[in-house]
């Protein structure tokens, strides 16, 4: 073996050991190893943004070509819908008034009192599909912090996993690391759900821990529970699409179809706790 080969082997060994240590540190639960992302994430986010819009344009063009008839039918339908909406406007005002009275009556906790919603665009998806991380175009400069909850008007998307200066990474709910407690809205029973996308590439959740005597049925709505102090209670997660019973041990498990279609979602809202926002504003002033 010549000298150059020996140096190469030595370098390979050093790099391997260094990478294993980095993997161990960054992969450990609750690790905060985001400095590299904070340094490199900002310039790359600018390129990602440009490519994201180019990708969307290409996708949009193909969609238009292949679904022209469908779109035309939808347009006709929308015209009719528009007429109906005008009539519903009055009804809506009346219901809003009634709703606010009811809220006060039962002291319903409203998210808008506790959180401010910051809108964000998804500019990059997980390259490898193993960790279901999306990149959004807002960061600490917009008031985003690690562990802020990310939602759309349809329901839960995930949490902020790493917050860079102008962009952040979010870990979606379908990631297997996202085991969290939910409630069946029909019965208010507590269940534990986890993501399965890493194993099956399907954007769905599984109810893997059901309390004894609890029951879950197809069509049940699942919402977040207050447990864990990460997700605010009551955010829509999805609907039970399948219930299976293990013949060997009698265990019941259920599959949940997400309320949010993660394959097409492009705009999300980050829920920043008002307390954090106020503290930051006070710090800045």
């Amino acid at each position, binding site marked *: 073996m010549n000298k150059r080969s020996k140096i*190469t082997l030595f370098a*390979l060994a050093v790099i391997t050991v260094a*990478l294993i240590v980095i*993997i161990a540190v960054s992969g450990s639960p609750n690790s905060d190893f985001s400095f590299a992302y904070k340094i490199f994430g900002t310039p790359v986010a600018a390129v990602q943004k440009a490519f994201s819009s180019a990708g969307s344009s290409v996708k949009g063009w193909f969609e238009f070509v292949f679904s022209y008839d469908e779109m035309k039918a939808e347009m006709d339908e929308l015209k009719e819908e528009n007429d109906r909406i005008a009539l519903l406007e009055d009804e809506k005002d009346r219901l809003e008034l009634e709703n606010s009275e009811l809220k006060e009556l039962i002291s319903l906790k409203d998210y808008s009192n506790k959180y401010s919603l910051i809108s964000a665009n998804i500019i990059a998806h*997980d*390259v490898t*599909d193993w960790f279901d991380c999306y990149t959004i175009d807002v960061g600490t400069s917009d008031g985003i912090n690690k562990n802020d909850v990310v939602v759309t008007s349809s329901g839960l998307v995930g949490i902020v996993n790493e917050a860079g200066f102008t962009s952040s990474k979010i*870990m979606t709910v379908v990631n297997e690391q996202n085991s969290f407690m939910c409630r069946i809205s029909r019965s208010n029973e507590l269940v534990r759900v986890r993501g399965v996308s890493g*194993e099956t*590439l399907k954007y769905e959740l599984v109810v893997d821990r059901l309390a004894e005597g609890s029951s879950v049925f197809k069509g049940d709505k699942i919402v977040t529970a207050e447990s864990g102090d990460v997700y605010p209670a009551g955010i829509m997660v999805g609907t039970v699409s399948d219930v299976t019973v293990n013949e060997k041990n009698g265990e019941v498990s259920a599959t949940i179809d997400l309320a949010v279609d993660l394959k097409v979602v492009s705009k999300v809202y980050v829920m920043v706790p008002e307390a954090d926002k106020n503290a930051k504003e006070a710090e800045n002033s």
Partner: protein
Amino acid sequence: MQKKRKIPKLINGAAIARLFGFNPKIKTLSEKDKDYLIEGDSFTETREAYDSLITGKRIAAAVLISFFSVIVQESLFNDLRLFGAKPDLSLVFVVIIASLSKTRFSMLYGLFTGLYIDVCYGKILGLYGLLFMYFALFVSAIVRPTVKGRVLIMSAISVPLLLVYCFTDSFFSRLLTIYSAEHTTLYYEFAQHITSRILPEFLYDTIVYVILVIPVTLLWTALGKSSIKGYKMF
């Protein structure tokens, strides 16, 4: 005595045919034009020496390919999924470039592409740096000396290696998920995991590999040869 750094001029068709290892003209040329060869080496040895030269143009191309393949993979292929899977474009480039380059260069190319994915897109830092580095090293050590630049044989060896990578990637990613999330199960249903995840990814990677292998090989060859004075590929 200084070696002559000249190589026979190849016509367009010959360059392409040579990639498949079917070109009788090259053999004729090698016998005719002894003066063009590096002294003491056969034509094949000389060609191999030039094929794996690391030129400035090749380094620049590798950097650009690494940077843009990941971005294109993420932004475009995310919407062009097949059976739920998207191809690993960066992996395909790592395989092709490692098949054409020496182990040191392949190793570094794999390492930096992997680290770039880890930092900008991944969740666990270092995972793809390590996987890509060893995979590139493996491909370069196994494929390059065996195939000597012939695309058909190169593909025949590389495609099964893509399947090996899919299993390896799956195993380590799942292992780290367990480590990170403190789970206890590596695979809930391994058969389902293979059919719904590994095979679609492998299939899509193979399709992309077949599409890209000839253009990238030609480009790589052209970038290496264009820096040699007097060499004309097309």
